[in-house]
């Protein structure tokens, strides 16, 4: 046999099973460094800036935002869609890649799922404050009331309420379920009584019995099945918020899959941004290897081209429709007053990911870090472009206008980033950032009876992915 297919191990071969617990629990078993405190301080300060801006808006009134007729949705809804989109990578990794037997996901799914939950929490803020009177937000829920008032079931905004809350609930349950065996490991390793109590309480009495594992695996599979449609449905419904309207630039049939692709694209970019930092700071390079980063960058490349396809199809169809409003909207996007936003979007989302054709660049940490930041920026501007450029010039030139964000909107946007990173930083110290039990299953260690002695055979070869 002359053919040898060289495969790269998922986890660096120098790591043994016993190393896994020690390495991954290390951040939880040591005091945080001053750097972590510094990062947390920055994140919390940003979150407080956001909170102050929200407080100002609630106290003074909605007029402190830059939105007005004709641009009634702008940075707020941009942020909502942006953060909801970020979450999709976590669900894709834990559900769809699970069903596709992509075992490399085991090293990244925990932090990606955590990211999902924090991103959805951040996203949820925006529609809630956008109502203007958040103390009436419970009106979003259909419940029998003495006024005989019901929500409008025909509005996609209401479907959003259902979609996002379902998404949050299922993601949280799925994430927590995956955490249970690892929480038990942390409990068993804990030195102090209080730590033992807290993690023991959270581990729900997990004892690693065969029965426990059996039920666990089954629940895991069922939740993966339930989460799979959620990857598609949530962002499809978000896209309906726009696409069911009559507005050129919003009403187009490709929106649902286009939004889903964009969500996965931006989500993976955010995972890359976060994991580049996490693996470096916590010394997890042997677990989150270049192979993992490489695979994620491939997904960024593919989904980036999918959104590129959608941009192209929108342009082509606007021309092909022969409808002058459609044609104008897209001309206006590319050449009008907000053309800068459009071209930021195109260059960050379509051009920048093209560098990932090169294997060398896919595996270069600085390059992917910068590229992932560009993608995040590009995807934020994608939503901005869709929302603002379509609204600011519609059918009647007499009702055209321009939009400029006020400092309150800028503050809330900064606050959303602070809020998100605050949770992520707390997560990194409080919970295992890598699914230990799942990573171990990819290490292919098994014991072979060898006379009386037991010999450990560690197979390093694993999947060749993508």
């Amino acid at each position, binding site marked *: 046999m002359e053919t040898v297919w060289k495969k790269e191990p998922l986890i660096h071969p120098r790591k043994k099973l016993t190393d896994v617990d020690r390495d991954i629990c290390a951040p939880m078993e040591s005091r945080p460094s001053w750097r972590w405190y510094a990062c947390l301080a920055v994140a919390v300060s940003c979150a407080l800036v956001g909170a102050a801006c929200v407080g100002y808006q609630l106290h003074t009134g909605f007029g402190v935002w830059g939105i007005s007729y004709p641009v009634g949705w702008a940075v707020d809804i941009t942020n909502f869609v942006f953060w909801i989109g970020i979450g999709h990578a976590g669900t894709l990794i834990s559900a769809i890649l699970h069903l596709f037997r992509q075992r490399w996901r085991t090293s990244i799914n925990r932090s990606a799922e955590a990211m999902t939950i924090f991103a959805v929490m951040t996203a949820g803020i925006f529609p809630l404050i956008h109502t203007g009177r958040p103390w009436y937000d419970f009106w979003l829920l259909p419940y029998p009331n003495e006024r005989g008032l019901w929500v409008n079931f025909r509005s996609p905004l209401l479907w959003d309420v259902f979609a996002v809350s379902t998404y949050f609930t299922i993601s949280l349950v799925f994430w927590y379920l995956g955490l249970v065996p690892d929480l038990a490991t942390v409990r068993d390793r804990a030195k102090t009584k209080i730590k033992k109590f807290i993690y023991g309480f959270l581990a729900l009495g997990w004892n690693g019995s065969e029965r426990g594992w059996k039920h666990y695996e089954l629940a895991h599979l069922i939740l993966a099945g339930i989460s799979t449609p959620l990857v598609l449905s949530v962002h499809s419904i978000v896209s309906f918020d726009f696409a*069911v309207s009559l507005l050129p630039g919003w009403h187009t*049939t490709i929106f649902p*899959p286009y939004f889903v692709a964009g969500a996965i694209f931006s989500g993976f970019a955010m995972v890359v941004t976060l994991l580049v930092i996490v693996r470096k700071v916590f010394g997890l390079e042997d677990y989150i290897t270049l192979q993992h980063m490489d695979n994620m960058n491939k997904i960024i490349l593919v989904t980036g081209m999918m959104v590129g396809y959608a941009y192209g*199809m929108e342009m082509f169809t606007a021309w092909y429709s022969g409808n002058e409003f459609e044609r104008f909207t897209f001309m206006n996007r590319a050449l009008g007053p907000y053309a800068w936003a459009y071209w930021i979007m195109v260059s960050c989302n379509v051009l920048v990911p093209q560098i990932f054709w090169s294997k060398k660049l896919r595996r270069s940490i600085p390059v992917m870090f910068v590229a992932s930041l560009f993608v995040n920026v590009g995807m934020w501007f994608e939503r901005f472009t869709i929302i603002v450029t379509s609204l600011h010039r519609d059918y009647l030139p007499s009702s055209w206008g321009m939009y400029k964000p006020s400092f309150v909107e800028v503050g809330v946007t900064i606050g959303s980033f602070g809020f998100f990173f605050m949770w992520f930083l707390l997560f990194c110290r409080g919970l295992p950032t890598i699914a230990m039990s799942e990573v171990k299953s990819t290490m292919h260690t098994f014991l072979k009876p060898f006379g009386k002695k037991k010999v450990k055979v560690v197979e390093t070869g694993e999947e060749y992915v993508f």
Partner: protein
Amino acid sequence: MSATHFETADQLPAVRPLTVRGGFRLFCIALAVIGGVTFFASLKANPERAFANYLLGFFYWTSLSLSGVFFLALQYITGSTWSITLRRIPEALVAFLPVAVVLFFGVLAGSHHLYEWAHPQAMDVHGILQKKAAYLNLPFFTFRNLSCLLIWLVFGWLLVRNSIRQDETGAVSLTKRNTKLAAAFLLIFALTYTFFSVDLLMSLEAEWYSTIFGVYCFAGLFLSGIAMITVIAVILYRRKKFGPYVHPDHLYDLGKLMLAFTVFWAYIAFSQFMLIWYADLPEETFYLSKRMIGPWQPMAWALLIVKFIIPFCLLLPQGVKRQGGYLFGIACWVLAAHYLDCYWLVIPRFAERGPIFGMPEIGIFVGFAGLFGLAVSTFLGRVPIVPRRDPRIMESVNFHQ
């Protein structure tokens, strides 16, 4: 699973090309002849109907053939190993592509019957169509679609040639070369197949437009492609042509893909329908109302039930996807459902008074099927039935889940 486990590639049994029975070949030739005769016979009676069915058959079978190239490219680019032992089947689908290039001239010949925009006088009076004249005109149409077909042919040919060469040399470099070709192909495929669908099907109703239409056609292409691969795989598997190379785990994966893309098709179809229905713009709804209200209503419901609900329910249980016969039945059903889908896209343009189904529909379609069967069986009769010397064949042979 009862499948044998192999330690080294030397233990793998030798493979030979399929011996295609003369009877099958005669049957295919007979179908092709029937197709030709019905086409020319109905050409006299009702040329619109003849060409509409010709277009339907051409689009259906060309897409199926192209799905072979797409399937190959997808497996190379994702580094999938489970499908290697089945790879000759998608390769065989590609064999119809050269025939498709020739058959495309039939569509061109019928363009005046098929497309409103192909009439210069219609273009003059119709405001919207005038605006599209730069795109919708015969020279550009011919150029676009012929180039699409030729590009697919070149990529398909290269992918298959490298794979067959590997039977001799077993060189890893050939797999790597095919992986690169696959990346280039997928990129080009996304654009070319979109324009192919827009040109051939969407422009039948020249005023109508939908940005998702290319994705809709792609969903149908891949779903029907998996179904066709399953049909051939089960036939060969049940006749023990694969030996130990293919076992129920491989079929199980095909079944799962079929389930996934049944759902994908439904998702895309729903996205298109829902958004057009909700916005209720006359320039968009006329396409759907023609196909969903009045005489075509039962057909629209049938499409939902036949193409989504039934295969979805039948494919959902786990164990049955390992049973060849069961899977074969569903795959045939999916292929029939895909015919229904294409029929629903094409025919209402020519038969607003309701579905028509008769000799031209059957005859012309089976004519294409005959040519397709001939091309596929000729290919399978010439090359070893399994790419035995693929560098990752062991992973595919020993593939379990």
